[in-house]
């Protein structure tokens, strides 16, 4: 009688590490990842040049290299939103999701691995995008720029980076829920660029919504005691992200693929 060798046992830690490697490999080999990240960087630089030109003429009302250099982030975030949505929805064009879930049957683990992989790719991209804009502006404004402390610069830049990473995480979560690239992009961009700003003007409670709270992390509203502080903004945006990830995870685990 022959004994069947026991199947090799994977520890949970090894399974998680392999899942993360797999998700990273998928994300890095997707041309759209690099195209959107590069596109966001290019668009941001072009807009920064435009804002700096306006700043040199004094029509921006501020001469701070931080404020002028980061003004374009509000538009460049569209690239990060698209990146997050593509990372999630590319699984659903064709049948890749079936292969993915055959290889990684534990959906919570797979989803977490995907979120982590996206964050690993987006973190440097966001930092580079934010820093390059500020450096470009600082260089162009030269001595005319309002001086700022290096601690303030570091704080604001990390705020922007964290904002972009969290927004991308939200986009991944929405992408997993909606499953269709175009629909998810329309929902997110429609909210961020049309509904959000209009609500902000008219409803006081809108400052607690993810876009307003998030932008308070790096663009605090001065001279208003009711305004959300950067720390509170960070907390609020993190809470929104966690809630949306939880909803997406719940839907992802319970729905058919």
């Amino acid at each position, binding site marked *: 009688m022959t004994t069947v060798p026991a199947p090799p046992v994977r520890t949970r830690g090894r399974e998680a590490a392999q899942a993360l490697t797999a998700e990273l490999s998928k994300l890095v080999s997707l041309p759209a990842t690099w195209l959107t990240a590069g596109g966001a960087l290019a668009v941001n630089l072009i807009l920064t040049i435009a804002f700096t030109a306006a700043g040199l003429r004094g029509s921006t009302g501020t001469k701070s290299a931080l404020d002028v250099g980061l003004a374009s982030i509000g538009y460049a975030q569209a690239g990060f939103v698209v990146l997050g949505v593509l990372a999630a929805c590319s699984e659903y064009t064709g049948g890749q999701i079936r292969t993915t879930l055959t290889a990684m049957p534990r959906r919570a683990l797979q989803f977490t691995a995907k979120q982590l992989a996206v964050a690993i790719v987006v973190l440097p991209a966001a930092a580079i995008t934010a820093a390059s804009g500020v450096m470009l502006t600082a260089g162009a404004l030269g001595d005319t720029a309002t001086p700022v402390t290096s601690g303030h610069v570091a704080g604001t830049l990390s705020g922007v980076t964290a904002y972009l990473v969290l927004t991308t995480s939200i986009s991944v979560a929405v992408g997993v829920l909606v499953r269709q690239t*175009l629909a998810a992009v*329309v929902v997110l961009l429609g909210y961020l660029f049309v509904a959000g700003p*209009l609500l902000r003007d008219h409803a006081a409670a809108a400052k607690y919504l993810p876009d307003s709270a998030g932008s308070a992390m790096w663009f605090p509203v001065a001279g208003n005691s009711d305004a959300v502080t950067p720390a509170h903004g960070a907390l609020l945006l993190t809470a929104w992200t966690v809630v949306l990830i939880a909803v997406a995870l719940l839907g992802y685990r319970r729905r058919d693929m």
Partner: protein
Amino acid sequence: MRVLAAEASKLVSLPSAWIAMAAGVLVPSVIAAITASSALDAISRGAKTAAGVDTGYQELAFGVVGVIVLGVVGVSSEYFTESAESGGGRQITTSLTAVPSRLRLLLAKMSAIAVVSALLAIVAAAATMGAVRVALGEHAPALGAEDIARLAGVVCYWVYTALLACGVTVLTRHGVVPLALLITNTSVVSVTYLLTKITTLANYLPDMAGVRMFIPKLGGDSVEMSPLTGGLVMTAWVTALLPIAAIAFTRRDA
């Protein structure tokens, strides 16, 4: 005529087209209702004497996001690749088999998009103006003959924007890039508006010029432009883009 009917049938059977239409009506009317009620607050507190003349029109400028989605999705759905299990096909091959003349197909598609956009604009304008009237009551700005011209401008702006969205998507053959660019630019402070701060030439970009058809005075104007000029400038953009799209569509492989 049958081609047009086919294109219209394809367009209105797209779920995303219905979402686009809902957005096109709801975004301007709901926001206009909110704006109008806060204006009513200001009037009853005595802070303001009357609602602005642009109440409703400004919101309709944002509602254009509905026809942007419509124009993009109407074209990009043709190029959406089915999953490998269901053959990996694209609708465009079927469409071109049924209507081999590419120019006719494109004309019919653009006409369908234009007609649906025009209807949507009329419904949205009626809903928005109705919402303003309900919210403001007696304080609502009176509708006169001038408003008929402005509302016609709104319809014109929506149709042109849909055609531009459609033309760009014919060139890109995928919806994400045109959607991202065009929705981003519908923002309250749009990229093109910021560009006007740098160069006055940016006033002649299609959206900045087109808006003049119904909002003649934009804040911080650097260039005076009459509604008619604005309309003509936007017409020029559309007549420049559509032939480029048509040439690309007829000469490229499907």
